[in-house]
């Protein structure tokens, strides 16, 4: 090449104005301001009460129970869901039908009814015994009431119901993995079980995680149903207080704030779990919020310097224009 490369003259055009966007922005901000104003001026909110009970002992204990219930039920639900999904996809017609029946039953009846059932299981089966069934001798016998506490009943109700939903989510995830992956794994001498655990499930996770995040958040709120069998979760604890003090609205706000806080934490957790299982899926992982803020700060007013070093090489972080903030 004899000619030195010359820089093309960059386009400098007047951007199109969008007056409609400005009007919409002003209207929405105005309405928001009215709403926020009412929060602080309407005395019926009783913010002092809201925050008085925010760190109240029984509320915090209820919160702890809610979190416990959510975690334990979700873990059992996920394990159960994976087992049910694998059963459902199995070549054995009995296993696959039983899985289908389970899902049909637990998705087909309201969670509230299932919880009540487990709560009153003692009325249905008075004793639970270990022995030879169909009239044989019994080695151990327990009163159902002693064996299944309110906490256990709550867990059973939530986890068994969750397993049915998770089963369908996991099955969708497994089906989304290319069949060639199983073949490749088997061609290397991996057993079906090992290939499922090491190759298929980790890839299925990418598809499973977002709906699983949804399920976890639903579960957090569904735990509030256990108050019907007398287990004191976050909502139940709040209800106990307002039934005594008649400050219904403030205590419901207290509970809601806690639900929102925990949901937010779960959402952040989901983002990082998704990133973990997304590795290798695309050339670049989505930026974390910190990376996003850093990029926004450094690229908002970025003008490429016309130096020799940057000729032909894109300088600075390369961001699609759609990601830049601000109204034009």
């Amino acid at each position, binding site marked *: 090449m004899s000619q030195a490369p010359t820089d093309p003259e960059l386009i400098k055009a007047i951007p199109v104005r969008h007056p409609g966007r400005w009007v919409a922005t002003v209207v929405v901000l105005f309405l928001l301001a009215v709403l926020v104003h009412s929060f602080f001026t309407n005395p019926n909110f009783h913010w002092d009460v809201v925050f008085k009970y925010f760190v109240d002992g029984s509320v915090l204990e209820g919160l702890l129970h809610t979190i416990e219930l959510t975690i334990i039920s979700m873990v059992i639900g996920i394990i159960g869901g994976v087992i049910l999904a694998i059963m459902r996809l199995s070549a054995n017609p009995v296993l696959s039908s039983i899985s289908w029946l389970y899902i049909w039953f637990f998705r087909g009846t309201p969670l509230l009814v299932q919880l009540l059932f487990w709560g009153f299981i003692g009325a249905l089966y008075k004793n639970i015994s270990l022995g030879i069934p169909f009239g044989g001798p019994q080695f151990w016998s327990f009163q159902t009431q002693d064996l299944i506490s309110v906490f256990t009943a709550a867990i059973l109700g939530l986890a068994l119901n969750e397993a049915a939903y998770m089963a369908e989510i996991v099955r969708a995830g497994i089906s989304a993995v*290319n069949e060639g992956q199983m*073949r*490749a794994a*088997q*061609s*290397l001498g991996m057993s*079906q079980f090992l290939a499922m655990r090491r190759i298929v499930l980790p890839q299925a996770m990418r598809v499973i995680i977002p709906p699983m995040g949804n399920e976890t958040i639903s579960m957090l709120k569904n735990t509030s149903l256990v108050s019907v069998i007398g287990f004191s979760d976050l909502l139940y604890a709040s209800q106990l207080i307002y039934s005594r003090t008649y400050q219904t609205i403030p205590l419901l706000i207290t509970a809601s704030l806690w639900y929102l806080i925990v949901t937010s934490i779960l959402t952040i957790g989901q983002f990082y779990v998704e990133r973990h299982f997304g590795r*290798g899926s695309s050339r670049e992982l989505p930026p974390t919020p910190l990376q996003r803020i850093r990029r926004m700060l450094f690229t908002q007013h970025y003008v490429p310097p016309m130096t020799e070093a940057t000729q032909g090489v894109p300088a600075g972080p390369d961001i699609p224009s759609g990601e830049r903030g601000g109204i034009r």
Partner: protein
Amino acid sequence: MSVPMVLAEGVHKRYGRLDVLKGIDLEVQAGEVMCIIGPSGSGKSTFLFCINHLEKISAGRLSVDGELVGYREHKGRLYELRDKEVTAKRQEIGMVFQHFNLFPHMTALGNVIEAPTRVAGISKTKAIARGKELLDRVGLGDKFGAYPAQLSGGQQQRVAIARALAMEPKLMLFDEPTSALDPELVGDVLDVMRELANSGMTMVVVTHEISFAREVGDSLVFMDGGVVVESGKPREVLANPQHKRTQSFLSKVL
């Protein structure tokens, strides 16, 4: 004469009412490179999958290194092998797929060491050393940590070859290894396969690369409609095809 590495006698494969293989007879000797060509749908890939029992044959006999594939013979009766026995035999047969089928959630090195560590029980340090050696051999010594999505098709296929070699197979099966590649990337993969053939590996290669078959193959098989139409020395078959079907196929691809 020693036992052939692959011996097929009257191999049939049927999917429901569809006959894919209608009596395949062929022999691959140890150290031989056999190329299988033919139009799509002729059963070439299905035959390959039968060799490591990813597909079950419907009739006939198929053996690898003197042992039946998928069955044990005892007093004139066939017994299906247990899963454990099947997987043990698959470890001795490497396979390379048209669409690579690399594990996308693992790095190149992760792909290569997965089976040795999890299946063959080799220690991780040993597997890593050997894996790096293999990736180096296929020309990817600088890509250990790359995920498949960060590699070109040709690089992915070379990782796939290294992955199969990591189990130290005695037989390598290639299912159209270059069909999904951009033309300019085909050469690198063929170079690796050529080098492998020169090292004495027994290979069965389903391919559309006629020139590769001519230069590297010891034997050439032309399949169509589920049967072997013609076979022999690659140069002879390619230069002087006997059957009309072979002639018309070759006239289109050459």
